[in-house]
């Protein structure tokens, strides 16, 4: 019966694969991944299932699930509306945190129709070391690339005002990859219980964790809240305060600012922490977190957007000239700064004889952000290829 169930599972996979194996993708990482899947499926099909014991059947079950999950992600990333501008920005940030010469992650996009549950980052497949381990051990196959899936709403796929929240989602991935906040939560409890915090530290921790955070039964809540705080700070490195501004609005504004749940801290506290970080205010919480980040990832939590990138070009109706990848996210900050404080600068500068309606202002700035990033991608690819030819 167990063997028949495995045969059924594998037959279902083959049916799905018949359709997916002809997919074409935008980049070589996905092509390479698909090629490895092909070898893996061939290797399984060459096996005699009747010879397997229970453990071997269980191994195959997990591998088949892994392949199904991969196909699900790959199938939804063949879209001909691939939002490569935002993906390029996220990939650049990812490469700053995970050296691409050691580990190769490919961000794949799934455009979804739902407005609820819309922005999410699924690192399940990328971080499933167990599956990769089994595949390597059983079939001697290694996936050179790993897939990270981001989901975003189809109708906002090219909206750069909202898409900046994906930096927060990337933060979650980095956290899971390096396991930063899980030990940090334990450390906070240990330090509190061993009376390692001074009076002002305690005031700070009590503010950000307004419950009995030192008790073992609150470890899960503390860890969940730390995950959100970490990802907020991670995003703030790239886009300053603007992710939090948006979060405030979608969470219900000032009326809901103090609401706290088992998984999320209050938006008020999240905003305050980001402010402390950006203003470099003295904070034991942030300093200790920085140490934890450095110990686990070897990286530094710091402001990474450049205040040198101004919105003057946008006001002149021109794209911003981005010179290096490090400046990419600064364009979002510049755009938000202009939009947030908009007082007809565009009309004044360009001698408009009529006022722009608000949706037109949004469209102009959004278009210019897209073109700024697009121009950077095109120019850098052009230069790279030119160097290869010469």
């Amino acid at each position, binding site marked *: 019966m167990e063997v028949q169930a495995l045969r059924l599972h594998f037959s279902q996979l083959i049916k799905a694969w018949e359709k997916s194996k002809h997919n074409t993708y935008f980049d070589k990482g996905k092509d390479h991944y698909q090629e490895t899947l092909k070898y893996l499926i061939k290797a399984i099909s060459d096996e005699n299932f009747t010879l397997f014991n229970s453990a071997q059947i269980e191994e195959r079950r997990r591998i088949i699930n892994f392949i199904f999950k991969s196909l699900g992600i790959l199938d939804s990333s063949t879209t001909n509306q691939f939002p490569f501008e935002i993906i390029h920005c996220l990939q650049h940030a990812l490469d700053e945190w995970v050296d691409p010469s050691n580990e190769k992650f490919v961000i794949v996009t799934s455009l979804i129709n739902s407005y609820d549950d819309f922005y999410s980052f699924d690192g399940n497949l990328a971080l499933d070391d167990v599956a990769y381990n089994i595949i390597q051990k059983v079939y001697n196959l290694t996936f050179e690339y790993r897939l990270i899936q981001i989901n975003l709403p189809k109708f906002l796929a090219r909206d750069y005002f909202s898409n900046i929240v994906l930096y927060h989602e990337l933060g979650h991935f980095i956290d899971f990859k390096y396991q930063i906040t899980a030990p940090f939560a334990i450390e906070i409890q240990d330090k509190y219980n061993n009376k390692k915090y001074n009076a002002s530290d305690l005031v700070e921790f009590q503010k950000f964790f307004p419950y009995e955070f030192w008790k073992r039964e609150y470890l899960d809540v503390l860890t969940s809240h730390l995950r959100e705080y970490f990802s907020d700070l991670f995003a703030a490195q790239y886009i300053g305060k603007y992710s939090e501004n948006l979060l405030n609005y979608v969470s219900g504004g000032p009326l809901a600012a103090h609401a706290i749940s088992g998984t999320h801290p209050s938006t008020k506290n999240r905003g305050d922490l980001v402010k402390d970080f950006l203003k470099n205010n003295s904070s034991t919480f942030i300093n200790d977190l920085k140490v934890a980040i450095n110990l686990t990832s070897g990286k530094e939590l710091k402001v990474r957007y450049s205040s040198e990138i101004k919105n003057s070009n946008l006001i002149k*109706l*021109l794209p911003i000239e981005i010179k290096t990848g490090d400046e990419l996210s600064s364009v979002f900050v510049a755009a938000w700064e202009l939009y947030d404080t908009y007082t007809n600068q565009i009309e004044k500068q*360009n001698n408009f004889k009529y006022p722009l309606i608000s949706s037109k202002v949004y469209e102009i700035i959004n278009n210019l952000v897209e073109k700024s990033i697009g*121009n950077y991608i095109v120019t850098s690819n052009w230069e790279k290829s030119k160097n290869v030819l010469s």
Partner: protein
Amino acid sequence: MFLAKNQLEKLIKQEKLIISPLLDNSQINEMTIDFRLGYDFLVSIQGRHPYLNSASHIPTDGAFYHFFQETRRNFGDTFLFHPGQTVLGATLEYVKLPENVSAILSPRSSYNRLGINLSTVIQPGYCGCFSLEITNTSHNPIKVRVGATMFQARFVKTKKTNYFSKERKYICSVKPEISGANKDQDLKLLELINKPIS
């Protein structure tokens, strides 16, 4: 009088004529500048509506969106133009014209000979990627490379005007946009002439 190479170069140097990105200075010719095919397209398809209604001033009557499908390619990828198909595209280059220079965009001769056709006049002071309304008039599909210099623009000196003296439908476009024919103010008037209020 078309602007010559030295005049075009001077305008670019003075940042009065902005072309971004200008990947290669060799795109500037004796009296034209070459423009590249961008990566965003709106491809005409057969929709559920019986026809494209550009005769009505009510935008939904036209339902132009139903007749076009959005698609994009990577820079350097290929794109296929089918015979008789209308494809809306945009130049790779974002352009800001001086207030006293207009542009006339056409295919480069090499692409014209294959059957690629378009003709666009751009007003002085325009800013955005040039809109491309391309038709393959040949009997064969034509495969092209995204980023190829398929188009050329001639620049003409005009009287100084203010592009934003009247409301504009397309400002800072960076990708093809569906026709705004339904938004033409004249349409209401013409409809009224056809069916006067008694």
